[in-house]
């Protein structure tokens, strides 16, 4: 082959206009559909979500086959999707109209459903500007799957830019403004000094008297985003602290190192839980030295006296036709998943509001792992823990390499949430 010919082929392939030799036959025939099975035959579960997301970005229609082969995707059989799946190493099977009819018949007769996905959601990650991509499970999952996102932080939130997005993920932020309560135990550590400085500078720049005051305002903006129809996903300490920030509108729950005054003596009594998304009647942790916020977290990883060992959590089985939303969020090829610590690992059942839907729990334990609910026109999902593939996560741990965990069931739960806003809205029965 001449160089000119080679370069031409490469350029065409890159532009997605032509397929290289081994894939040309397939493109010529154009399979009606591609089935991306999500059971154990899938070569890369996490990247399959990226293939579906990019198909939506190209304006194609995708169907999410809930409970069919562990939540498979029916993708368009066009050349671009074939190419994308091949590049990503995602297993897809050519599926003709007859086979699709057969699949639909099977779905009709079982606890399954086919949910059309229509439009790639606009994704934002709330994360400080200096955060490395390897510091947050959701960012890692999106990077690995190839799902586009933008980063926002306090400035963008306060300036009212959240309505630009459909889906917002909260980096493991401490919305009580207490710097994850690491201040006393890690005093002098360079990373802590930098984190505090950055937050204090931002609070000052936005005109707030302290970081706790500014974070509370950010929490309220985020809650408004949900009420107005946004999708919120939070993990780790962002789950617990956003509710603490929302409920503490009329009291001071921050230690003196954060705002110059200690926690109000009657803070517990003055919490207004009606403002919170998920929790109620939690008791605040009084010690400023302990990196624990309240008894919302069931595992209390940083409390030597109360710390609970990790077990495994079980996903609930919902009715796909009646409860499509939680069904979407629990699609997985594993029903029992090893638990993993975070500053907030789990959620005490005692503190859950009555309307909260539990999607995963540790059977017999007084805590649950994965919950969701609705506020106004929007919806929120909370997932306890920091990194599903780094169960004991410690500060300074090496980043998780998702290429080594392409089948991670814990990470699948994150990616279910990313695609969920793409689902065509239909009246929900729950």
């Amino acid at each position, binding site marked *: *082959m*001449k*160089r000119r*010919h*080679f370069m031409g*082929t*490469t*350029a065409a*392939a*890159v532009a997605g206009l032509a*397929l*290289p*030799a*081994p*894939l040309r036959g397939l493109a010529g025939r154009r399979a009606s559909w591609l089935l991306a099975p999500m059971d154990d035959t899938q070569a890369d579960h996490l990247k399959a979500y990226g293939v579906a997301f990019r198909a939506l970005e190209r304006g194609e229609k995708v169907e999410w086959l809930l409970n069919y082969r562990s939540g498979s995707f029916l993708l368009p059989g066009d050349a671009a999707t074939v*190419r994308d799946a*091949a*590049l990503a*190493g995602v297993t897809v099977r050519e599926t003709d109209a007859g086979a699709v009819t057969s699949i639909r018949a099977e779905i009709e007769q079982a606890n399954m459903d086919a949910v059309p996905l229509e439009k790639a959601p606009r994704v934002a990650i709330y994360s400080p500007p200096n955060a490395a*991509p*390897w510091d947050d499970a959701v960012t890692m999952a999106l*990077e*690995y799957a*190839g799902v586009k996102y933008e980063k926002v932080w306090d400035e963008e939130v306060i300036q009212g830019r959240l309505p630009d997005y459909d889906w917002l993920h909260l980096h493991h932020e401490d919305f009580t403004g207490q710097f994850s309560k690491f201040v*006393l*135990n*890690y*005093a*002098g*550590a*360079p*990373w802590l000094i930098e984190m505090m400085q950055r937050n204090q500078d931002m609070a000052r720049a936005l005109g707030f008297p302290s970081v706790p005051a500014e974070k509370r305002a950010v929490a309220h903006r985020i809650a408004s985003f949900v009420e107005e129809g946004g999708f919120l996903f939070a993990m780790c300490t962002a789950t617990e602290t956003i509710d603490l920030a929302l409920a503490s509108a009329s009291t001071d729950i921050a230690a003196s190192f954060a705002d110059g005054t200690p926690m109000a003596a009657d803070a517990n009594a003055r919490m207004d839980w009606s403002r919170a998304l998920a929790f109620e009647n939690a008791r605040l942790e009084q*010690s400023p*030295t*302990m*990196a624990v916020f309240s008894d919302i977290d069931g595992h209390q990883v*940083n409390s*030597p*006296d*109360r*710390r*609970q060992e990790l077990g495994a959590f079980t996903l609930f089985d919902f009715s796909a036709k009646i409860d499509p939303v939680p069904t979407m969020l629990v699609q997985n090829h594993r029903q029992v998943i090893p638990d993993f610590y975070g500053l907030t690992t789990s959620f005490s059942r005692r503190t859950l509001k009555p309307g909260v839907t539990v999607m995963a729990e540790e059977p017999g334990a007084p805590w649950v792992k994965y919950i969701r609910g609705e506020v106004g026109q929007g919806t929120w999902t909370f997932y306890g823990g920091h990194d599903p593939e780094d169960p004991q996560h410690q500060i300074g741990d*090496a*980043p*998780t*390499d*998702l*290429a080594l965990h392409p089948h991670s069931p814990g990470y699948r739960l994150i990616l279910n949430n990313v695609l969920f806003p793409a689902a065509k809205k239909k009246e929900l029965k729950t």
Partner: protein
Amino acid sequence: MTRTCLPIVVLTVTLLAIAAPLAAQRPQVPGDVGVALDAERRGDFVAAAAAYQRALAANQADATALLGLERSLEPLNRSGEMLGPALAAVARAPGSAAYSALVRAWVAHRNIDSARAAVSGWSALAKGESAPYRELVQALVRTRQRAEAKRAIEWGRAQLGNDNAMAYDMAQLRASEGDWAGATREWLAAARELPGYRLTALAALTPVPERERGAVRTVLGTERTLEARELEAGLLARWGDPDEAVKVLIAALPSDRARASEALRGFATGLQSRPDAARARGAALEELARRNAGDAAARARVEAAQAYQQAGDQAGARRVLAALPAGRGGAAAAASAASTLVGVLLAEGKPAEAEAELDKLRDRLPADEWQALRRSVALGWARAGQIDHGEATLAGDSTVEGLAMRGRLAIFRGDLKGAVDLFRSAGPYAGSREEGAHRTALLALVQPITSDTLPALGAALLALEQGDSARGARALEQIGEALSADQGGAEVMLLAASVRASLGDSTDAEALLRKAAASEVAATAPAAELELARLLLAQRRSSEAVSLLEHLILTWPRSATVPEARRALDEAKGAVPPS
């Protein structure tokens, strides 16, 4: 009872009668403590805690029961219950066991003042000892109260009048905060108190980030002791500068021969598994030889020569061997010296002298070692351009390694068919893993070539063997152009590109890789594309690399290079952390 039950009862009574004396023969801990220990061993901590509590109710001063209760309550998250028993134990029989439990109990209750009071009571009994303070510090660290733990160390130091007390604990606290200079100061203090801490310090300070290393060296520099220099040298070696490390160490050696030798031997031993530090190891051993006499010096010289040779420093190896007095160090050392000399002579391109030296060793070396050196001499002859002589040297070597070496010499002669036959006869496992991989690469290179002989290729490969990479690359390029792509041309081009890349000639390497990639030869094109993508990534031309990797994956989906290409693609896109 019916009559049928009677035999069962009789049997049971008999068995019990036999079993009772047997059980009595086992060593038993009497009473509740025995029950508790048994329950604890079974993992029934609830029962264990209850039994220990019963034992303490009978005797509040029972240290075994007190510590057992503490162990059992911890997994139950009931450590808070230890306070009462610990207070009672201290009141009844104040001793280290009772006080240590009390200190831990107060810390668990977050009552630091009371924990300090317990430490004071304990230290009144154990005057001048750091154990009470250390117990407090460790309890605080366990409960992640690091700031409080530091304050406890300062308090203990003031009480003990010893600024170095608990330096080991303070060092770890400082390091956990990223205060590496502070940690180093503490490690020095710890090593002053107990020299055994030096190795711990070395391990603990190895992960110091690059930007902090200067500060660590500055702190180490404030202490003018050999121990500090040993630590500094050890760290420098682990941080990738072994040559500077050995200079630092040698400059600080005392006149005391035993102490200096200990330091040098320790340093050299620490580098034994580091091929990249072979020269520094050689320097340390040479200095060790210089400071010793007799057989010890001779053995150190032989080791130094081997290290220099491993580092490719033939002059150093020769220098050390030249200083080796004849007959010193015993027969084994002499044989090692001679075989090292053979290696040095071969590296210097003197196969005749090497062969002569080797002949002298015939009766002093094990047969397989001698034969391995003989094969090296054969290769040395080939490198000198005397392939016939090399083949003659291999006469009588019927080992698979000998067949493999004959194959290499056959390739240098351009006898491709002969080489392939010999390589196949040798099999994949002859020699070291590296040699096996090298043979496989040579087979992959020559197998697509239809001609049985190709002297030009042999000459090009010989040029590479002789270290003349530029000439070898030029020749390979010409051969690659002359051969058709699917009859070895692409593979030869790929090799030429690798040689160019190793010479730092990335422009020519890129051009050659593009030619090899464009060949559409299934065995070569994907490998060439992968190498080209890596070359582009190294030049930060990510978008071009991404295009190539995508092309590779899509065009050659069954190629063995696809997993590597996917990994490279993920890294290029930032989808995974860099390797």
